[in-house]
């Protein structure tokens, strides 16, 4: 009896897995176990109804707000951790030196990797080098510019994959593009806040040294760097939209949904970043 119960639990679980995770129908599940159909059917119907009822989504405005707050918290924690610990810096310096040696020793390979596409063997090297560049870039403005450059590479890769008809890989890269654009938006908030506080500081009297005066003048002349970033993002927003739409015209039918998704991700991502910079 116990053994039979266990067997039934296993069959029910297998059917639930197919129903809940693999989105198969109740009939498909029952077809595999016709002798248990009468017992299984009502249970699977209940499970399907419960799954449907639980299909709720967070409000979009809450999701956006929560995302920004989380990313701000993440940046804050990351910057706090990276500041005072000498031993961490020492380990980091060792790691960087090792990587630099590797890069110098295999310069040709790295150069080749930087032009590689996601369907090529050297692509992981490209991503590793990009990650290293990001780790070595500390200023939010420089990091945002670097992310913009990486986003440009992602769009080139998506178009390449679309031309090759590789929808699955194109989707993965589109997700990466979405994350990188989100990072720019998040960094843009930090940059705007930094600029605001520097403007407030600028309203206070007399910088302490000649160097402070020079830096302050440069900062105000250049608009603090945010304007440069805005221009760069506007250029990329326009060119990426044009390039992806052009690719859409000639792409195989199977990859068009991914290209449409990439267009949407690109438009929304740049809009958010530019809005954050203009606030």
């Amino acid at each position, binding site marked *: 009896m116990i053994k039979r*119960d*266990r067997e*039934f*639990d*296993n069959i*029910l*679980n297998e059917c*639930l*897995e197919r129903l*809940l*995770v693999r989105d198969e129908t109740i009939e498909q599940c029952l077809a595999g176990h016709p002798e248990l159909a009468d017992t299984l059917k*009502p*249970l699977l119907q*209940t*499970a399907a*109804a*419960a*799954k*449907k*009822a*639980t*299909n*709720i*989504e*967070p*409000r979009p405005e*809450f*999701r956006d707000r*929560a*995302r920004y*707050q*989380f*990313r701000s*918290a*993440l*940046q804050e*924690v*990351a910057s706090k*951790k*990276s500041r005072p610990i000498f031993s961490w810096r020492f380990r980091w310096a060792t790691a960087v030196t090792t990587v630099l040696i590797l890069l110098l020793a295999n310069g040709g390979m790295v150069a080749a990797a930087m032009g590689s596409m996601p369907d090529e063997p050297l692509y992981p090297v490209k991503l590793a080098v990009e*990650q290293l560049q*990001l780790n070595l870039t500390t200023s939010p403005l420089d990091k945002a510019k670097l992310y913009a450059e990486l986003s440009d590479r992602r769009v080139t890769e998506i178009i390449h994959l679309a031309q090759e008809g590789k929808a699955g890989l194109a989707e993965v890269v589109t*997700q990466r593009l979405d*994350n*990188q654009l*989100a*990072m720019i938006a*998040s960094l843009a908030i930090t940059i705007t806040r930094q600029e605001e506080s520097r403007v407030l500081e600028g309203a206070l009297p007399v910088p302490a040294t000649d160097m402070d005066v020079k830096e302050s003048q440069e900062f105000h002349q250049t608009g603090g760097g945010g304007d440069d970033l805005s221009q760069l993002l506007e250029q990329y927003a326009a060119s990426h939209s044009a390039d992806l739409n052009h690719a859409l015209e000639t792409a195989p039918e199977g990859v068009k949904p991914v290209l449409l998704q990439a267009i949407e991700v690109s438009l929304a991502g740049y809009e958010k970043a530019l809005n954050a910079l203009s606030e």
Partner: protein
Amino acid sequence: MQDEQSLVQRAQQLDQEAFTQLYERYFNKIYRYVALKIGNQAEAEDMTQQVFLKALQSISSYKWRDIPFSAWLYRIAHNQVVDYLRKKTRQPTMSLNESLAISESNPQQTAEHKLGIEQLLLATRRLTPAQQEVISLRFTGELPIAQVAKIMGKSEGAVKALQHSAIVALRKLLVVVYDDKKG
């Protein structure tokens, strides 16, 4: 899973892109889990944010070999829910005083869906705590049975049996709740 393990390792080094990817992967699921446990939108939103901030604070102490990342995250969410319910002087809100947002544009479908959630909430409250947990983790988190077992500290066989009894009970209760509503 390999991909997730490498993401988690990078997140532990506070790699922002890796952590952001994990956040995006689990945000909706954790919100759903919390919302259906406490049945209040505003509280569920606050709590979902708390879960991820807690994860950010504690990620360095997480060890992959002990439990999968998703199980660890749900455990944080579970603890937050338990703390919340303990602090409440009365039982959690039974009715959805602030409707949970539903991704349907048709008002009739939305109304039916809201009724569905409400019935489910009412019915699940009458299950045992262990049955409630299995239903939440399997249906809102879509977690495999092995991970549910890890989170609940039970064997896979025990969780399968609980799952079975929970669905049987839920079926009976949903009929009762539906009849009550009609009456």
